């Protein structure tokens, strides 16, 4: 594609479409981009190569392991660590500006550290649990993120602390992994620096996806006996994601390049769909809630922090775009908080609020899609209504006829709404 464009430049210049200066600028632009794309390829292969070499060495040593004594075992356990540290030292002294060298050497050292500790535990028959091992490994490698400016190690660090948090939180008996918060905060200066300087890079995108995944997985670990309250926490988290997606640095991106928007919208819609059912509210209303110890429970503090953060972001969003332009789904945490505390006493109120909120959001997106000629927003609204109707389809309190009519109406709505927008576009083009 790039070669074709460059070849066409002469033709365009000869036809007088572009002048020589413009042709030269286009030529230089594509040369730089092809250089940076080949750099990216080198980087990916370097990281893969380092990982494969490390794994291969381990497997060969493992095959001959039984024939060696304890001292030899110990030396071999430290060998990858020494090699990794020498590679990183060399990179810092001689190849500091090369991303490939920085990423490959730090990735190798990351795995070498874990391998060394695991092998020493095995050689010397030392006990210990997986969570302590992961914590030690992560903390020993965190400085590499800053010293080597390694995004790959940063991503591995996020994955490993998430694993650690799930072991502490979900394995019996389980308790909130408060240390996870501190571990994640230790990485925020690096992530912020990446956001400031490389917000459009792939590494930053991977960080966004991984952090979102990590938060979604670990949030549930902060429940300690009153898990039903975590619905509010999750919906608040998804609201926060939607609000972050409206920051100027994210707002101009395409939908799937904006992970906060994708997961935020999906999370809110799915959460409200689940909470729109009668069965769940009947269950929630029958549960025993210990409100006397509410203020000392981790669920309360988790919800409090997330709700405060969401409110702060709404105020921030209002200054960016104005209140009317904020996604209505971002207000989900306010609606659900009311719905929950009233709904556990009067379930029908909870059911109605959740259904009405989704319907309101759907209508908003349909209208805005029509106003802004945005098929994506229009269809999002229609998808929400359809999902709501499908969920109601399995709600046996509504008759077949009623459900059938609802489906037909929404289907007709889909066709009409899309047809209108496409017709308007054709008229504009004509």
């Amino acid at each position: 594609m790039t070669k074709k464009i460059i070849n066409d430049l002469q033709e365009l210049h000869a036809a007088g479409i572009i002048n020589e200066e413009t042709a030269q600028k286009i030529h230089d632009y594509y040369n730089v981009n092809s250089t940076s794309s080949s750099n990216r390829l080198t980087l990916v292969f370097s990281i893969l190569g380092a990982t494969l070499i490390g794994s291969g060495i381990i497997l060969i040593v493992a095959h001959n392991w039984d024939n060696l004594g304890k001292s030899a075992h110990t030396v071999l356990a430290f060998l990858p660590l020494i090699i990794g540290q020498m590679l990183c030292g060399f990179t810092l002294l001689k190849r500091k500006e090369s991303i490939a060298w920085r990423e490959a050497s730090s990735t190798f050292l990351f795995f070498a550290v874990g391998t060394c500790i695991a092998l020493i535990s095995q050689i010397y028959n030392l006990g210990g649990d997986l969570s302590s091992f992961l914590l030690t490994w992560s903390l020993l490698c965190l400085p590499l993120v800053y010293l080597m400016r390694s995004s790959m190690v940063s991503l591995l660090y996020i994955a490993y602390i998430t694993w650690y948090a799930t072991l502490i939180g979900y394995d019996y008996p389980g308790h909130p992994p408060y240390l996870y918060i501190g571990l994640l905060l230790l990485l925020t200066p690096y992530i912020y620096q990446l956001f400031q300087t490389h917000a459009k890079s792939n590494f930053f995108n991977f960080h966004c996806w991984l952090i979102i995944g990590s938060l979604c997985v670990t949030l549930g670990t902060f429940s300690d006996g009153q898990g039903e309250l975590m619905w509010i926490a999750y919906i608040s988290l998804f609201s926060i994601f939607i609000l972050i997606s409206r920051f100027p640095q994210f707002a101009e991106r395409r939908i799937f390049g904006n992970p906060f928007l994708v997961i935020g919208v999906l999370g809110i819609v799915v959460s409200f769909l689940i909470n729109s059912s009668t069965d769940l509210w009947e269950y929630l209303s029958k549960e025993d809630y210990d409100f006397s110890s509410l203020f000392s429970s981790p669920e309360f503090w988790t919800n409090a922090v997330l709700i405060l953060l969401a409110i702060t972001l709404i105020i921030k969003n209002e200054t960016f775009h104005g209140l009317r332009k904020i996604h209505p789904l971002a207000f989900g945490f306010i609606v659900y908080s009311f719905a929950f505390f009233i709904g556990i006493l009067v379930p029908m109120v909870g059911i109605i609020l959740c259904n009405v909120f989704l319907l309101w959001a759907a209508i908003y997106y349909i209208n805005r899609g029509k106003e802004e000629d945005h098929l994506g927003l229009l269809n999002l609204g229609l998808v929400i209504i359809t999902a709501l109707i499908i969920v109601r389809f399995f709600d046996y309190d509504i008759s077949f006829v009623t459900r059938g009519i609802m489906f037909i109406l929404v289907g007709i709505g889909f066709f009409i709404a899309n047809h209108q927008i496409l017709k308007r576009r054709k008229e504009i083009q004509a």
Partner: protein
Amino acid sequence: MIKNITFLLFILLVFVQWYVPGSMIVKHENVLKTGQAFKFKTQPIDPADPFRGRYVTLQYEADEFQIQNPQDWKREEEIFVLIGEDGEGFAQIEKVSKTPFEESPNYVKASINYVNTNSAPKLQIQYPFNVLYMGEFKAPKAETLHRESNRDSSQIAYGLVKVKNGAAILEDVFINDVSISELVE
């Protein structure tokens, strides 16, 4: 200047990355050289127990202790177990406490597997030295030998454990005073 500081910090990191596994080895060797040896009789291993990779999982006979008030203890709670010897020279539990023992160094840091709350309440104890690492080809043979020895009452299998101030190192497993590693050669 920044390059020098970065490199110096990296050297510091190198020392820390060496210190952690190094201190594990030093602690291990210290307990092996200066710790008190105890023979922990092993129980038969459940044949259905998944055999993970290259290690043999062990259970010990001296892993239960009678208590007065089961409500004072919780599952997964960290405890300290004072070890003594029975009349045959095998390890037995003298006392269990939530804090380290000051009167003797012969105690092990362990955890509560579960609290048995029936008419004779007991603590089921999980020791940290319940795994013996062996080569991938030796371990299945070792596991079979060990299981057979536990079925045969004339054979006595035990783990030799060095204990000191909460730390415990499983040195080896013996069947009739012969190391299991020698038996599977």
